[in-house]
């Protein structure tokens, strides 16, 4: 997201459109990345229910993944998952894994 200059910003500390927090990529804050093992997942929706940032991606009543743009890596999903299908992996290691 391109940051606005002081001349482009609205006057005062005002946010004009509601629900625009989606534009803020809190995923950059993450130290640990939750990774779902889809073989263990039963789609019970506990992770979706507990996630404080609405970062569990769901389609047709099935968990399909995690929105890493916004997931802060709090680990609540991993703790609450009854099937222990979510593993918290160090973000740095996960990225190195991806780079391979």
């Amino acid at each position, binding site marked *: 997201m391109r940051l*606005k200059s002081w001349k482009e*910003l609205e*006057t*005062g*500390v005002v*946010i*004009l459109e*509601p629900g625009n927090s989606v534009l803020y990529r809190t995923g950059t804050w993450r130290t640990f990345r939750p990774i779902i093992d889809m073989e263990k997942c039963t789609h019970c929706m506990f992770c979706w229910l507990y996630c404080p940032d609405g970062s569990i991606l769901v389609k047709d009543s099935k968990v399909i993944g995690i929105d890493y743009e916004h997931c802060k890596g709090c680990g609540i999903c991993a703790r609450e998952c009854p099937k222990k299908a979510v593993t918290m992996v160090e973000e740095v290691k996960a990225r190195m894994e991806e780079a391979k």
Partner: protein
Amino acid sequence: MAEVMVRKAEVKALEGDKAVAEAMRQINPDVVAAYPVTPQTEIVMEFSQFVAEGLVDTEFIPVESEFAAMSSCVGASCAGARAMSATCGPGLELMWENLWVASGLRCPIVMAVVNRSHAAPLNILTDQTDMMGSRDTGWIEIYAENHQEVYDNFIQAVRIAEHPDVLLPIMCGHAGFVLGHTLGRVEVLPDEVVRNFVGEYKPLYSLLDIDQPKTFGAYDHWDYFFEHRRQVFEAINNALRVIPEIGQEYGKISGRYYGLVEPYRLDDADVVIMIIGSGAGACREAVDEMREKGTKAGMLKVRCFRPFPAEEVVKALKDKKAVAVMDRCACFGAEGSPLFIETCAAFFNRGLRMKLINYFYGLGGRDTIPSEFCDIFYELSQIAETGEIKPPFVRYLAVRE
């Protein structure tokens, strides 16, 4: 047209505090939130009486503290209301955190500050330590010399604060007791003239806009905080243009024109005293006395301290032989008083070197009489003659050694 309106003004004997209340009644703001504190109490007392008598439509909030007063004003202002308050000395201190919120959220709140010293020693009398202490909070700060200016400033303040290029809160200072509790001659404009002048407040954004909901006062990280601050730097400097514009417009309805600074017998003056607020009254007398004795004395009254009118000050003083800068506030451990430091910086930045001396005076309500100003003029004359300033550079007027 202007002539007719001026003649319609009614001359009243008003205490400075009541002049504020009278202006407030005529402006008829949406919300007033204030807590009584000596010597500001009369403003709140008088205005709450106007509310009780149904003379205004104002929602008056008798808050539990000054912190709550400013919180209420900020909330009301964000909701789109024209909000006002009044305080002094320690009350202003208690508002401190919210002073920054008011300017940061760009709330054009208008507040009378009846200048009072800070304890300890406990003292309820006047000096400008309160407003000088809050000089960097993003509030515009103007001061009155006499009762008429108390009234005039408060009305102009509404237009200055609400100007779209400014949108910042404003403090109107006047001396506690010296102006606040004494009777003075005030030409009070007709109600409808004042109401036409201030007009209806049209907020840029409103919290109560339910069709297009907005967020006010969200958190900023390092990525946006500085940009929002930069806007306030710009907005307060815009007031340097807006204040004289409004002052001229006000002149058309009142016959009294206002700027950022006001010279007195300055054109051909060699030695000058620079001063803020009610002390200028006695200083004028000293100027006249010195003129009679053949000294080319003059005065520069600074009406607006924030934003600091550097250009106007330099233009007014650059040809003068010696200048004494007077400040009625306590400001410990600095190179000089606030007005002195600003003035020095203004000259330095323009590559000019001046003969300036600095006086702290009148703290805790101590009177400064014309003969004391005359002594300073004698001192300035000597500096002008010899070109030499003897230390100390920072001096304390009429303090027993």
